[in-house]
């Protein structure tokens, strides 16, 4: 009897092992091709789109030390398809492995397609594919997405998944590109009352970009010389109701990111005009945002009044006029200069977007909600329409927490 029992138990264990493989969903690591980026373009054929897939080779860079395979780190395929979902099947006529979107990092859309009114319905297909994660990023490229992937050959970071991860992560940290995940895209789209900012990227540099002051570039315009990649991530594409309507530059993106409490931008370096006499006209400061913005609204009248207060902490990084900041008077002067400068910048951004796109570049409508009891009332108020006439009052609360090094000590050193 005991022997029978033992045999039975062993049989049960074997049965369980066969379940462990995942039944029909058995996945062999060897047998999978990981798509890191998807590019979407307008197709020459009517009613179709051109899909580009950037596949990473998992073998490259994974072997410690020598003995890496001579294979290329990536593969790029472009073809016409009816939609993104069907593309997954089509591509298997070219790729030997099963296509997996598990590691999808970025969806690059060409500006041409993003400006097409069909774009909303095309991108909405993504929701149906459960494999695409909502934390993948949406980016808009100046050129065709298929060309973008081909042109983009990182020199240092050859593994595409790492390249995009680092590039986007640091771009968002600096605030030069927005945190444009699909998740934010879809929630903004559903809300329908604000603009969505998607990161702008370009793999081609413009021939002779006009020189602009700090960060006022869009992708492809940053002029740099040396040996490096041509790809740039800076600025953002503005989407209204899921269709691209324009572009804003890097500086404006930084400002929008500071306004948006839901991004976790840490600190940023900017130049403010030097209020003190001297040959150099700029002071470099580090702006830090640690507290949330205070927004008050008066929505009663014909033209709603919006009061926005931005608390900023400032560290002075340079002191070109060698001012002694231990004097109260000088402290007041620099404080005022930073205050007016930042207020002007914000007002300019909001007025620009209000005038041109008729909506706010960040979820401002959230702050209006607390003035209403029910959703119906809020919808009746019609934020999108009222905002066009809204008067916006900006105020920055500057706290200078560090005036930099004491000038006298440095002077002594120079002597």
């Amino acid at each position: 009897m005991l022997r029978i029992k033992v045999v039975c138990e062993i049989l049960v264990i074997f049965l369980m092992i066969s379940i462990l493989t995942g039944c029909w969903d058995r996945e062999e690591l060897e047998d999978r091709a990981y798509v890191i980026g998807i590019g979407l373009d307008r197709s020459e054929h009517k009613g179709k789109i051109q899909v580009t897939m950037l596949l990473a080779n998992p073998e490259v860079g994974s072997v410690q030390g020598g003995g890496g395979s001579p294979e290329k780190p990536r593969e790029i395929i472009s073809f016409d398809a009816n939609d993104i979902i069907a593309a997954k099947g089509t591509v298997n006529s070219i790729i030997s492995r099963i296509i997996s979107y598990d590691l999808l990092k970025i969806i690059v859309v060409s500006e041409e397609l993003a400006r097409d009114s069909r774009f909303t319905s095309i991108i909405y297909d993504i929701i149906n594919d459960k494999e695409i994660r909502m934390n993948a990023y949406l980016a808009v490229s100046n050129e065709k997405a298929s060309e973008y992937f081909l042109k983009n050959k990182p020199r240092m970071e050859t593994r595409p998944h790492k390249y995009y991860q680092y590039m986007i992560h640091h771009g968002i940290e600096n605030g030069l590109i927005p945190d444009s995940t699909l998740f934010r895209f879809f929630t903004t789209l559903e809300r329908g009352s604000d603009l969505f900012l998607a990161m702008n990227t370009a793999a081609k540099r413009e021939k002779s970009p006009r020189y602009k002051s700090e960060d006022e570039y869009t992708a492809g315009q940053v002029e740099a010389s040396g040996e490096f990649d041509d790809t740039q991530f800076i600025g953002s594409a503005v989407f209204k109701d899921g269709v691209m309507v324009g572009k804003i530059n890097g500086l404006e993106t930084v400002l929008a990111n500071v306004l948006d409490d839901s991004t976790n931008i840490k600190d940023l370096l900017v130049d403010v005009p030097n209020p003190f006499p001297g040959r150099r006209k700029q002071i470099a400061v580090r702006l830090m945002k640690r507290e949330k913005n205070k927004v008050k609204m008066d929505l009663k009248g014909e033209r709603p009044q919006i009061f926005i207060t931005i608390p900023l902490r400032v560290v002075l990084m340079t002191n070109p006029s060698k001012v002694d900041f231990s004097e109260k008077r000088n402290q007041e002067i620099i404080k005022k200069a930073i205050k007016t400068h930042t207020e002007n910048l914000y007002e300019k951004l909001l007025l620009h977007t209000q005038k041109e796109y008729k909506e706010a570049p960040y979820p401002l409508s959230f702050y209006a909600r607390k003035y209403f009891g029910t959703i119906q009332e809020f919808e009746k108020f019609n934020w999108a329409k009222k905002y066009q006439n809204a008067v916006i009052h900006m105020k920055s609360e500057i706290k200078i927490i560090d005036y930099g090094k004491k000038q006298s000590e440095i002077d002594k050193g120079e002597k």
Partner: protein
Amino acid sequence: MKQKPGKLGIREYAAIAILMVGSKATEDTPAFLYTGSQNAAWMVPILSAVVFFVPLFLLIKTISLFQGKNLFSVIQQLLGKYIGFLVCLVIFIISSLGISYDSRTYIDIIKAFYFNSTPHLVLYAILMAICTYGAKKGIQHIGSVSYLIVFYTLLSGYFIFIISFQDSNFQAILPIWGSGIPRIFKESIHRLPLFADFFLLTMLIPYLKSSKEFRKGTWIAYSYVTIHISTAILMFIVLFDRSSGAIGYPFHTLIRYISLGNYIPNVEIIFFVIWIMGAFIRFTAFLYVNALMFGYMFKIKDFEYLIPSLAAIYLMIGIIPESSMDVSHDLKPMVQSAAGPAFAAISLMVWIAALLKGEFKHAKNKSGL
């Protein structure tokens, strides 16, 4: 130090109840609550709990008059042999359909998010086989396993909650009344079946050490679960905002979205494993309760042998609907709209019958003596 066989302690019972009802926050219930009352959906479970408290309180009060008797024997004793049997049959049919369609929803989730190409039938068979195995082991085993995993489930829930904070916007709960106060009240009445499981759990009374423990355990689990579901819905609302209605299974969309920093991005499988263990317990306990009902109605003493065949029947009922849409839009609302009022009505009926028969007075006299 061997535990007395056949009896559940308060911990085990509360663990079963929390797992059975709390897991409703992780399936399609939040999406339905959202479509009903939009961003005030988090109030609905609280209000429903307050409403359902009345019949449940009366029922438990009535049952506690009959020391160590379960729901069905109390019903039969109070309502007579024939009417009693009919009422029991109604309860059994409702809860049978409930388990079938609920388990089907779970299968739909598993298939949609984790096992895309495995056929429904295979997944379903595995789920039911595991639940049968568990249920056959008896209620003590179910109780101790649920006590083992209840903390993991809850902790993982809090963990997800904390991580998802980063991307949440708390202003999404405004305007505070959502789609209007009347709508919220209507919705709360409509959502009574959220707590219907507590009604069914009164079948387990004979297996508890004392009816006092049962009462205490029920109220602990009841209040905890109310807060749990409400908080979970709040979490989905502040994260998904207006898209909450469009996302069928917000919990699973959420765990696919969150990541532990840049270096551990895709973590859903950790939470999936914990979730599926909770699901096993939920259906195991559910199956056991159903077998208990069936056994009691037809006077089958060794009802535990019924479990495999009942599981097979539930599998067959559950596999009939063609798509998950049919289940979550037609069949489940149908069962739920029957379950809520029916269970509340039966509770009231039992209480009134006891009142008319003077059972409360008897009990007082007894205790007076």
